[in-house]
């Protein structure tokens, strides 16, 4: 799974995208990914839930996912079939939640400034290399630490605990 190349179109967002923008609290009366996906990023861009396609990539500036601890945020993004998020930096709790949910996220200093809306991207999960097919450029993301790769490979934190407990 971690060697997979993620492909999709870029959707651009600014700095400090908060969890209320990712999934507003008024929709937190469910934990269903499909229901949550209907409202993903809606307060940042009301059209986003309609235009996002499977594999697409969210690209943002610094501090993506600041605010609440709601795991509904990465769940909603995954529910919309977004393949990964690239940002200059991530807020701490969102960072943990994304990995725990198996949503790949990449920190890159230059990619968010070079990528333009609609660019076709290919992100190699194992190397962290981001290829911009539209512009024939490539950027580097911070490598994901080995123990985090293991978490993703196991299918998230719960799956790894299941393994430890010997549950199938």
């Amino acid at each position, binding site marked *: 799974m971690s060697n997979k190349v993620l492909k999709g179109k870029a959707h651009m967002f600014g700095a400090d995208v908060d969890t209320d923008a990712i999934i507003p609290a008024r929709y937190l009366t469910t*934990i269903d990914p499909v229901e949550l996906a209907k409202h993903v990023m809606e307060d940042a861009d009301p059209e986003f839930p309609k235009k996002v396609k499977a594999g697409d990539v969210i690209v943002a500036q610094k501090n993506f996912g600041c605010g609440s601890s709601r795991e509904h945020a*990465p769940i909603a993004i995954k529910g919309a079939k977004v393949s990964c998020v690239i940002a200059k930096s991530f*807020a701490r709790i969102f960072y943990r939640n994304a990995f725990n949910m198996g949503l790949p996220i990449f920190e890159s200093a230059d990619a968010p400034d070079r990528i333009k809306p609609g660019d076709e991207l290919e992100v190699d999960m194992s190397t962290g290399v981001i290829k911009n097919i539209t512009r024939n450029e490539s950027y580097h993301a911070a490598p994901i630490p080995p123990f985090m790769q293991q978490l993703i490979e196991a299918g998230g934190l719960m799956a790894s605990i299941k393994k430890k407990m010997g549950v199938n």
Partner: protein
Amino acid sequence: MGMTITEKVLAAHAGLKEVAPGQLINCKVDIALANDITAPISIKEFRQAGATKVFDKDKVALVPDHFAPNKDIDSANQVKMVREFALEQNLTHFWDVGRMGVEHTLLPEQGVVGPGDLVIGADSHTCTYGALGAFASGVGSTDLAAAMITGEAWYRVPETMLFSLKGKPAKWITGKDVILYIIGKIGVDGALYKAMEYTGDGAANLSLDDRFTICNMAIEAGAKNGIFTPDAKTKAYVEGRFKRTPKYYASDTDAKYCERMDIDLSTMELQVAFPHLPSNTRTISNVGTVKVDQVVVGSCTNGRYSDLKIAADLMRGKKVAKGVRMIVIPATQDIYKQAMKDGLLEVFIDAEAVVSTPTCGPCLGGHMGILGAGEKALTTTNRNFVGRMGHRTSEVYLAGPAVAAATAITGKISSPEDVL
């Protein structure tokens, strides 16, 4: 080598003599907490992992407070799921409507969390308990589920930023002004992944309620935790309240800090955070004319007795301005009762404000005071993101209780001096 208080609490819970920033450690947790929004995912993960029992029925706390009393059928079902789990697991710390309060005000009040604790909570404002000298940090539901099963959690030891406080705050200045001032200076990711430690002679001039508010909003600067060194005031608060034995830690004199900021409390001014980030602060004298539709006093940030008292003392004998709705939400039943006994609720009702049962309610745009298109609110809560309290074109301004009360009276963002 010297350690900070955060490093000491983490080391103690990891069974290590010392830890250093950047180190990954596995810690035993004293309390694992979730609410009616986050617990349902934790419970689902708990079951899917094949777990049948929580690691310790005395160490898992569940508080349905966000959409409770249930605002609709979906939230009723979520609370029901939490209630049934709490009963099934025979949890000691579960509070339902009539007993519950806003989680981060309730847990310290009821003596469930205390000095030296390591608290993990599926709520970002879990960092509140640092006011007591605990390491407390928010996580998502899955991390919390893992802690409910194993009683453990992994952490990266954070670097610590030191905020050295001096002087005595002037009248009206509270912890809310101190933390908004700091966030205004360092930004909403100014303390990303870090610990925010408060020290200096000025710390002794801050009440526990001030400290709770300051640590509560550490997350609004991106921090992992906020923390005060326990002192005589901490001990007085904890005595006869905390159910376990407190452990008092303090930073070594040769502890290492990544950054340092000196803050003079005596020159601190009243702060207001403008839409749409808590870092977008202005002093009250630079606010200009901002008319509001709603004022809220409440939340885990400022729903404590002292907040209600400041607001009531300003509002006694006065009325909420025409065209403004004022909503007062005591954070717990004990606060509600004390405010009733002392006549504060009567002051609010006479002023034509509404007093609500404890709930997070409007703070996160849940219920009990949602904003319509283009409406503006001045509130004592913690976040002013787009759509936070309602419609995506509504606006939220953050301030402390004195500015909130003055604003309710005048109908525009005001200093308490304007209404005396």
